[in-house]
C-alpha cells in the first residue's frame, strides 16, 4: 500500500521531488558528503523471460508456483539494483509467501461462499476484512523489510501493531466525520508509519516530514481535478450544442455522440493517470528527501512530466502488445525511479552494524517461520 507498485527495498524506502526542499536541507546539513547514485542493471529481455517462465509455471501448477514466481521476480529486481558497487538482496523463502497466498485464497473462497449462501452476512465479512487489514499491512511490512538486505545487513521494520491499527483503522474512520479534511493527514501518517520505522541493521531511519506538505500536494490535486471537471463539462456542453446545430439526421448525431464520449473517456483516463503520477512523484520525492538514516540522507528527483510520459507510453505499449510488453514497461519505470534516487553521506557505507538477532534458538526460528507470511497488498 505504502509502496504501491515496486517492492524494492529502495522503493520501500522512498525520497521527494521538491528540488527547493532538497537544496535547502542540503544547505543546512553540516557536511555535504558524497553522492552515491542507485544504479539499475536489469534488462527488459531478461525480465521478460523470467516473467514468461513464471506465468507458464504458475498456470501449469494451478497457482502454487506463484509464490516462487514472486520471489524470483523480486530477487531479479533487487539483485539488479546496485548502490556503491554492491547489490541489494531479497532473501524471503517462497514457502512463507505460499502460506500467505493460501490464507488469502481461503479468505476469498470464504467470502464468495458467504456471499452466495448467506448474503445477509456479507457485511460481517467486509467488517472482518477491515479489522484484520492493519494486521496484514503490519505483517507484510515486517516481512518485506526483514527479508531485504544490503551488504549482508538486514533491513528491519520497527513499527508497532498498535500504530498500524491507529493508522489504518482509526484514522480512516474519522474521514467521514471530518468530511475528508484529514485525508492528506492520513496520507502523511501512512508515509510516516513506513519511513519513520525503517531501519538498516541497528540504524533506524527518521522521517522529518510534516503534514502541511501533504495538504499542499492534495490541495493542488483537488484544485486541478475540480477545474478539469469544470472545463470538461463546458467542453462537452459546447460540443453538444454545436452538434445539435449542424447535424440534420439523428443517426449522424448519435455517432458523433459516441465519438465524443470515447474522446471524453480517454481524456478522463489521461487526467486520472496524470493525477496518479503527480501524487506518486510529489509524495515519493518529499518522503525520501525528508528521511535520514543516521547521518546518511536520501535524494529523489523524479519529474512528474517524465514519469507521466513513461506511464502513458507504457500503457500504450501494453495494450498494443496484448500484455507482452508488461515486463518491458516495468523495467523502464523501475529504471527511471531508481536512477533518480541518490544517497548522500560523508562517511563510507562500510560502517553500518547488523542488529543482533533477538532469538537464535531453534524454537524461536520455528515460531518466527510459522508466523511469517507475506500478503500481497
Amino acid at each position, binding site marked *: 500500500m505504502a509502496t504501491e507498485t515496486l517492492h524494492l527495498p529502495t522503493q520501500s524506502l522512498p525520497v521527494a521531488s521538491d528540488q527547493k526542499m532538497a537544496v535547502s536541507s542540503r544547505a543546512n546539513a553540516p557536511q555535504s558528503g558524497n553522492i552515491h547514485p542507485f544504479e539499475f*542493471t536489469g*534488462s527488459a529481455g531478461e525480465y521478460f*523471460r523470467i516473467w514468461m517462465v513464471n*506465468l507458464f509455471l504458475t498456470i501449469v501448477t494451478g497457482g502454487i508456483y506463484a509464490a516462487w514466481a514472486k520471489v524470483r521476480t523480486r530477487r531479479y529486481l533487487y539483485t*539488479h539494483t546496485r548502490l556503491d558497487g554492491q547489490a541489494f538482496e531479497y532473501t524471503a523463502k517462497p514457502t512463507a509467501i505460499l502460506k500467505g497466498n493460501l490464507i488469502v485464497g481461503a479468505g476469498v473462497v470464504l467470502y464468495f461462499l458467504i456471499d452466495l*449462501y448467506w448474503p445477509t452476512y456479507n457485511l460481517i465479512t467486509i467488517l472482518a476484512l477491515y479489522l484484520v487489514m492493519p494486521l496484514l499491512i503490519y505483517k507484510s511490512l515486517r516481512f518485506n523489510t526483514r527479508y531485504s538486505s544490503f551488504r*549482508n545487513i538486514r533491513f528491519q521494520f520497527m513499527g508497532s501493531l498498535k500504530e498500524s491499527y491507529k493508522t489504518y483503522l482509526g484514522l480512516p474512520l474519522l474521514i467521514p466525520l471530518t468530511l475528508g479534511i484529514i485525508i492528506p493527514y492520513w496520507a502523511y501518517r501512512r508515509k510516516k508509519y513506513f519511513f519513520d520505522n525503517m531501519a538498516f541493521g541497528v540504524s533506524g531511519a527518521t522521517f522529518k516530514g510534516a503534514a502541511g506538505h501533504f495538504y499542499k500536494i492534495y490541495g493542488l490535486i483537488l484544485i486541478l481535478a475540480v477545474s478539469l471537471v469544470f472545463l470538461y463539462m463546458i467542453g462537452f456542453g459546447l460540443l453538444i450544442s454545436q452538434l445539435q446545430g449542424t447535424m440534420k439526421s439523428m443517426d449522424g448525431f448519435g455517432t458523433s455522440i459516441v465519438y465524443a464520449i470515447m474522446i471524453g473517456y480517454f481524456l478522463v483516463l489521461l487526467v486520472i493517470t496524470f493525477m496518479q503520477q503527480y501524487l506518486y512523484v510529489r509524495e515519493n520525492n518529499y518522503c525520501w528527501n525528508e528521511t535520514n538514516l543516521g547521518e546518511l540522507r536520501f535524494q529523489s528527483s523524479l519529474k512528474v512530466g517524465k514519469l507521466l510520459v513513461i506511464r502513458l507510453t507504457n500503457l500504450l505499449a501494453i495494450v498494443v502488445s496484448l500484455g507482452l510488453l*508488461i515486463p518491458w514497461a516495468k523495467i523502464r519505470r523501475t529504471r527511471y525511479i531508481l536512477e533518480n534516487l541518490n544517497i548522500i553521506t560523508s562517511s563510507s557505507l562500510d560502517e*553500518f*552494524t547488523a542488529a543482533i538477532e533477538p532469538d537464535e534458538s531453534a524454537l524461536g526460528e520455528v515460531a518466527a517461520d510459522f508466523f511469517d507470511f507475506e500478503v500481497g497488498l
Partner: protein
Amino acid sequence: MIRFQATYFDGQTSKAQAVVVGYDGQHLSLHSADGNIQLRYFLKECVITPASGHAPRIIKLPDNQQFESGDLNAVAALEVEAGGNRGMRAVHWLESHWKPVAGCLAGAMLCVWAFIVHAIPFLAEKAADAIPPEITRTVSHKTLSVLDKRFFEPSELSAEKKTDIQNLFQTIADALQVDFQYQLAFRRSPQIGPNAFALPAGIIVITDEIVELAANERELASILAHEIAHVEKRHGLRSMLQHAGVFFVVSVLAGDITSITSTAGTLPTILVESGYSRRFETEADEFAGRFLIGQGWGTQPLQDMLQRLAASHPDFPSLTWLSSHPDIQQRIENLRKLEHSHIP
C-alpha cells in the same frame, strides 16, 4: 581447482572486503590480500543462492557470513560441483534461453485456451447442479423485478389470448415431459421489441411484440420450446457461473493492467462470452428443432420465426460477432440439416 575474485561481508558490519576464493575439490577457502581474512569451509556447509539474470552471485557461509562474485562462470562451475539446487537451476536455464521461453508462451496460451473452452463450461455445469433451487428462485425473481423496472410494462394482450398461449405452453411442456415448475410471464416492451427470455427458476418472459410477430401457433410454439431448452439445460445459471470464471481468468492474467485500463480487460471477456452463448443458442435451437420434428411440423416454424426476428432487428446481422445470437443464416442452416438428418 576453481579460483575467482569476490567481495566478502562478515554479517556483523556492512564492510566490503575484497577476497580471492579457491575451491580444491572439497573446501572453499577465502583469502584477503592483507591476510586479515583466512577462512576455510566444506563446500557442503555453504549455500549457493540461485542465479538471477546476470546479477552477481551470492554464496552464504556459516555464521551469517557471505560473499558476492561477478564471476558467473566460476560460480556456475562451483554450483555443478556442489550439486543440489536442481529445481532452481532448471528454472534459471529456462529463463536464460529464448526458445524454451517461446515454448512457455505457447504453453501458457494453450492452457488458457483449454481452460476457457473446456474447463470453465464443465465446472459451471457441475456448479449449476449443486446450487440449491431456493437460491435459483430468489435470483430469478430479483432479476425479473429489475427487468420490470427498466424495460417492461404490463402486457396488453387479451385474457383470451393469454389463456390460449398458456394452454399451448402446457401442451408443449407435457409433450417434452419437463422437470421444472414453469411460469409464463407476459410483458409489453416497446424498448426491447419482439423477444423472449428464460430465467433459471423456470420463469419464461414473452413480450407482446413477439406474440404479434409470430404468424401462427407453431411459430410461437417453436419460441417457447427454445426457451424451455434454456431452462432445462440450466443455461442461465451456467452462463452466470461462466461469467464469474472468465472474470477470474481475465483478472489473473491482466492483473497488472486492469486497474488502469478496465476496458482492455472487458473486450476479451465479451468475446469469450459471446462464444459461450452461441453454444447455448445452438443447443436450444436443436432442442426446439427436435420437438418440432417430433410434432410432425418440421423445423420450418422456427426457421420462419428466426427470419422474422432478424427482419425486425435490422442491425442484427452486423453485430453478430459481439451479439449473443449466432448468425441467423447459420442457425437456419443448422435447423435444415437437423430436419434432413431425421428424414429416413
